[in-house]
């Protein structure tokens, strides 16, 4: 019985303190890859999407395992890498769940867009190094 309690305790500890961002992506309109010199705007929930944008695809970051690399900054960095690969210059967060009792990870739903204007001039989230 004691053994069982210990096992349960460890499983609970692992379950509550570990997480991994599982990325689900769906690209409907991929564009040529963007170079490192082209800027990508990171728009959080409160930032408005400009007019006349073309949707490239969706990303979804979920919690599913044993990694701890799932802070908001880390997920946005990963989203930007995916955006650059698929030719999107706007990363727009459309749904955001902050870490809570059930998960120590941010969980995000993101839409990727191509914008013909200057993405760097848009009001946006400023990425920080964790």
């Amino acid at each position, binding site marked *: 019985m004691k053994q069982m309690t210990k096992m349960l305790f460890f499983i609970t500890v*692992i379950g509550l303190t570990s997480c991994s961002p599982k990325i689900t992506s769906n690209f409907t309109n991929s564009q040529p890859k963007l170079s*490192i010199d082209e800027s990508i705007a990171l728009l959080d929930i409160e930032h408005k999407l400009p007019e006349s944008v073309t949707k490239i695809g969706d990303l979804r970051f979920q919690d599913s395992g044993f990694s*701890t690399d799932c802070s908001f900054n880390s997920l946005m960095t990963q989203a*930007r*890498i995916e955006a650059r690969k698929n030719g999107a210059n706007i990363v727009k967060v459309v749904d955001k769940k902050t870490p809570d009792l059930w998960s120590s990870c941010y969980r995000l739903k993101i839409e990727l867009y191509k914008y013909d204007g200057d993405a760097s001039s848009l009001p946006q989230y400023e*990425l920080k*190094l964790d």
Partner: protein
Amino acid sequence: MKIILRTILLSSILLTTSCATIISGSRQNVEITSEPTSAKIYINEIEIGNTPVQKNLKRNQEYQLVLKLDGYETYETKLEKKFNAWYIGNIAFGGLIGIIIDPITGAMHKLKPEEIDGNPKSGTTYKTEGGNLFIKISLDIDPNSEKIGQLEKAE
């Protein structure tokens, strides 16, 4: 009272039996220099400053490095997370808790510059001393740039 004592005991065990976490910590000190110096450095596209630069980076993440200097080609590389051998200490000392804690803190990893076929990317040299990572990047002259003059310090 017993519960509090047990909680304190358990917390102490959790905090003191993770080999790599104790030895290496969850972050790694990384120093980046360049030849020539004063190149603008970006980590994950965030401007950090001009080389030489020192940063304490999380071990459980991968980082993208970009160096830019007028007249030189932009240099791109990555810092990858590799296995930290101190993690094996948990097995040697039988630390089951350490086996769980080290991956959570990220201490089971160490940062290393990207390698191609087992060798550092051309232009990158590095060494590790006392857990700190020292990287030196040599920038190539941009063949499209043309030298039109040079400023000299007035005496």
